[in-house]
């Protein structure tokens, strides 16, 4: 008998703002977010998401949604569908979710990006797979039409909560997550990360009901 599972009520994409502001050549210690009244450099950040069939070259999603505040892995690619309306049957996988970060506002440079699952454990039978490290165009994940089959390109096992320092490298660039020109830092404005794609894969031992709410963190430096 199949078990039906709902999951992840409100998986938070926490923006861990570890801002190192290098001003006038001096570097403020890592972990401190200083207020700089004279310059007031503050990047504006939001998560966005691509859904729909791959289109264009380089490929991106047909639909781009902005101001994304959570990730609910579910049995559909449609952004607006509640996860409760598209539960995953135990043993199946979610559709892969193609989130990415967007930076705007005032800054000189965005750099040192890391992405990881940083808090709260998943239950038995649940495996979270995620985007591999991105250091430039050569290893950035290319958009494919979301599907529920196991995505072999998501090589990072994000199931365990780890220290953000162990997170995968994130790269940045202009135009969009799909665009070339990605590197470990950018001065482009607006700027985008590579795709931070995830997929929740389940086995038949997964328990029915909502999963725990977990935290995925994107950390970056700005100056």
């Amino acid at each position: 008998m199949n078990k039906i599972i709902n999951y992840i009520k409100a998986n938070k994409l926490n923006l861990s703002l570890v801002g190192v502001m290098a001003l006038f050549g001096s570097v403020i210690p890592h972990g401190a977010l200083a207020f700089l009244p004279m310059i007031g450099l503050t990047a504006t950040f939001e998560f966005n998401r691509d859904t729909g069939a791959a289109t264009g070259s380089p490929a991106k999603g047909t639909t781009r949604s902005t101001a994304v505040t959570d990730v609910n892995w579910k049995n559909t690619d449609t952004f607006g569908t509640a996860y409760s309306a598209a539960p995953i049957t135990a043993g199946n996988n979610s559709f892969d979710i193609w989130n990415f970060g967007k930076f705007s506002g005032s800054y000189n440079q965005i750099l040192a990006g890391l992405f990881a699952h940083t808090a709260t454990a998943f239950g038995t039978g649940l495996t979270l797979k995620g985007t591999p490290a991105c250091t430039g165009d050569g290893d950035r994940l290319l958009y494919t039409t979301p599907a529920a089959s196991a995505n072999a390109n998501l090589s990072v096992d994000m199931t365990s909560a780890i220290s953000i320092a162990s997170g995968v490298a994130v790269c940045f660039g202009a135009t969009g997550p799909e665009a070339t020109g990605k590197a470990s830092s950018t001065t482009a404005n607006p700027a985008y990360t590579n795709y931070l794609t995830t997929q929740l894969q389940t086995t038949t031992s997964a328990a029915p009901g909502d999963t725990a709410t977990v935290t995925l963190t994107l950390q970056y430096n700005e100056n």
Partner: protein
Amino acid sequence: MNDPKTIKVFCAEQQVETEHSIDIDGSGEIILSCTAEIGTEEEPMTCSRSLKFAKGTDAKALKKALAAHKAANEGQISVASIEAEKEKLIAELVPDEE
């Protein structure tokens, strides 16, 4: 009856290569599950961390994917291991009350 076949696969949870069972589910996807025994003698437990690969993945592609999996996941420092290390350090530094 033959013992179930296993292969050595890097387990992201254990951070070492462990024996993984091999199965193919109803959707045709390949499932590799860690069989490492964890827990205690009183409460034995199996790791059971699993990896899935799409239907039709052949042995050559699977080997390549497993190599990429190890490269991508080796070196993760889990929050749980940090906490365990902290507890151990505190236990060694803080003298027992007499």
